[in-house]
């Protein structure tokens, strides 16, 4: 134990003396976070919807690049060959290396979280759960990092192998691109990647209901971690001269790949693909949350309240909350879809039932949901919704209700699908729908009050 403890301590000391390691391990995650903060600057609550992704990227980078790079470079130098001449068993070196990396990743995650808090993000909903989830995520990726270190014969090979894992996980694995934005086939593929479960687990602890909703994710990550760490220990190579192609025990890669496959198949069998796309069960079930405080009735909204609104919104031609101009014509296919929605709104139950605020909120969602999942029809529906609202509500009343929605974005509930209006797809995160509803409500007010003449 003494040897393990000393090796762990020394590994950490050496890490903190290595400028490049600090740059990659700490500065890059922070830069990533700031980039997200700037990219999603219009969100009411900064960064909270993205902490799952940001923390996953940090763990992924530290475990799948940092760990194997350090291990392989020390092996190339002959450090591990020298370690092998000592009586400390292999498992002790593996455990100590993995623990050191966990501490490094944890500190990087804490730093990232600290910066997010300083930028205005509220405290995670379940801090202790977040630590547990972060630990399980780290375990899974450290196992993967160990396997990469044993596969790679040199440092350039680590970079190549790491990218082979990193990029697919980022793009179609649900780490950097939200699952709801991905085509169906990619959503199925993502079920075989641990990144998806990592994001889901971490996000649930930041803005969802915590560990109770992420049992499957933790199980999947633990399975992948056990397979990776076991294979990493069994494939352990001390000597740079010992090439992977010539090493024994290559069959240990089977359980590693088997774990990924098993997790994906299990997700398919248990219909986890659909469940996890529905953010309500995992990410932020805000839709069912009661209002934190008793709210004043919308009728008390005054012209002063309306004038005091923050009318700074993204441009109509952008990606977030696009809004077609009167001269813009939809394509034939989209035109049919728009027309179907226009007709469907007349009998659409969420637009007819409940109190006025909830009805308007539901109708605004008809614009917000396609925007949140970037459907081709997204920019053509807001004018339709606005037109419908103006038909069923008097101008003053509509302005007050929309202003109320803007001032109480977390109130009531939002819908995540308008499939019954003929537009397919499900919003991945209710918080996004709320945010887009907020933006469209402002854009509607701008037009109704004549601040914008379109």
């Amino acid at each position, binding site marked *: 134990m*003494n*040897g393990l*403890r*000393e*090796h762990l301590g*020394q590994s950490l*000391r*050496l890490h903190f*003396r*290595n400028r490049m390691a600090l740059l990659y391990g700490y500065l890059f995650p922070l830069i990533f976070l700031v980039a997200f903060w700037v990219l999603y600057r219009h969100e009411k609550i900064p960064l909270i919807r993205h902490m799952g992704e940001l923390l996953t990227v940090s763990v992924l980078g530290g475990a799948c690049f940092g760990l194997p790079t350090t291990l392989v470079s*020390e092996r190339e*130098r*002959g*450090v591990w*060959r*020298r370690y*092998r*001449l*000592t*009586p*400390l*068993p292999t498992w002790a070196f593996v455990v100590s290396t993995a623990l050191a990396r966990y501490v490094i990743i944890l500190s990087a995650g804490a730093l990232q979280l600290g910066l997010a808090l300083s930028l205005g993000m509220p405290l995670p909903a379940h801090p202790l759960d977040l630590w547990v989830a972060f630990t399980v995520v780290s375990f899974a990726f450290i196992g993967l990092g160990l396997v990469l270190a044993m596969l790679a014969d040199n440092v350039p090979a680590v970079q190549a192998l790491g990218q082979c894992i990193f990029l697919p996980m980022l793009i179609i694995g649900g780490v950097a691109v939200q699952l709801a934005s991905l085509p169906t086939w990619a959503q199925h593929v993502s079920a075989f990647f641990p990144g998806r479960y990592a994001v889901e687990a971490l996000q649930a602890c930041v803005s969802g209901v915590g560990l109770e909703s992420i049992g499957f994710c933790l199980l999947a990550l633990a399975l992948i971690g056990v397979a990776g760490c076991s294979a990493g220990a069994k494939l352990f190579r*001390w*000597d740079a001269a010992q090439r992977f192609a010539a090493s024994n025990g290559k069959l240990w890669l089977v359980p590693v790949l088997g774990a990924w496959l098993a997790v994906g198949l299990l997700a398919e069998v248990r219909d986890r693909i659909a469940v996890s796309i529905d953010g309500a069960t995992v990410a932020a079930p805000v839709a069912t949350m009661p209002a934190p405080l008793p709210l004043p009735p919308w009728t008390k909204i005054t012209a002063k309240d309306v004038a005091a609104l923050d009318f700074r919104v993204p441009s109509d031609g952008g990606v977030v909350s696009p809004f077609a101009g009167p001269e813009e014509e939809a394509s034939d296919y989209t035109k049919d879809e728009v027309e179907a929605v226009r007709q469907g709104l007349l009998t659409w139950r969420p637009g007819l039932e409940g109190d006025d605020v909830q009805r308007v909120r539901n109708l605004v969602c008809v614009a917000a949901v396609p925007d949140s999942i970037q459907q081709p029809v997204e920019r053509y529906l807001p004018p339709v919704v606005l037109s419908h609202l103006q038909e069923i509500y008097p101008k003053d009343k509509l302005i007050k209700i929309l202003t109320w929605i803007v001032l109480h974005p977390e109130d009531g509930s939002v819908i995540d699908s308008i499939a019954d209006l003929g537009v397919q797809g499900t919003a991945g995160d209710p918080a996004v729908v709320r945010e887009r509803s907020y933006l469209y409500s402002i854009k509607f007010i701008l037009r109704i009050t004549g601040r914008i003449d379109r």
Partner: protein
Amino acid sequence: METKVRVTGLRKRYGAIEALRGVDFTLQAGEIFGLLGPNGAGKTSTLECVLGLREPDAGTVEICGLDALRFPREVKRKIGVALQSTALQDKITPREALNLFGAFYPEPEPTLRLLERFDLVAKADAAFETLSGGQRQRLALALAFVHRPEVVILDEPSTGLDPQARHELHAEIRRMKCDGYTVLLSTHQLDEAAALCDRVAIIDQGRIVATGTPHELVASAASGQAVRFTASQPIDPASLNRIPGLRALRSEGLSVYFETDEAAPVVTALMVLLAAQGATLWELEVKRSSLEDVFLKLTRPENKSMIHLA
């Protein structure tokens, strides 16, 4: 005398190449034993099998009475190793390295004592990357002694060292002997082996071709004495050939080389001859056969024979 290391019938094959073809040798307690051989002769493979870095295809390695293949961890507590190039992380300091490696053993030597003994106190907190070759080698030796080993194994320890560092290293190895350590030294530097080793084994093409003390090996392979002289004018070879006991005569300019079993009478006759020809003797060198001669003789393809003296 107690046998500290016993290697028997060691064989190792890498694909089609048979690196070791039955290596046998023993080390007695307190001796410095040199493993000599040209590049590719099997020194490294032998040491790697002894150290447990490679598993031999056949043969046994016994260290301090323990089967090294069956009890590798126990054996690693008995041996201290300094590899050819000591590789540590760039930013680690000698003090940290000694603390770290000391923690791998139950009763390590105090770090400060090792720093003092190997003259590393001034560099105790310097990064490894800033150490000179000699300082790195001293650190490697200190690491080998971190757990008070019974047997010290040094793999090409003076490779890459400058003359001063090499001199210091040799002094340290002699000190090991004085302190009673058993040392297995792998080297291809013949003067180093001759100066340091009590016994040497010459390995070539995967097998031991000679073992014994350096003196015994030289004596066994002795081809007499080599004589070289330079005169003030060219000497007629025919007249030199008339001197009894002189052989392998050759000349290069004014220098003449030959071998003889007994140099004294030949040199006397040579002086007489030079005087008769009116030539002046400018240089005269008489040299006994060296370990290098033995080594070259045994490791040259045309000179294969086995010599075992001890």
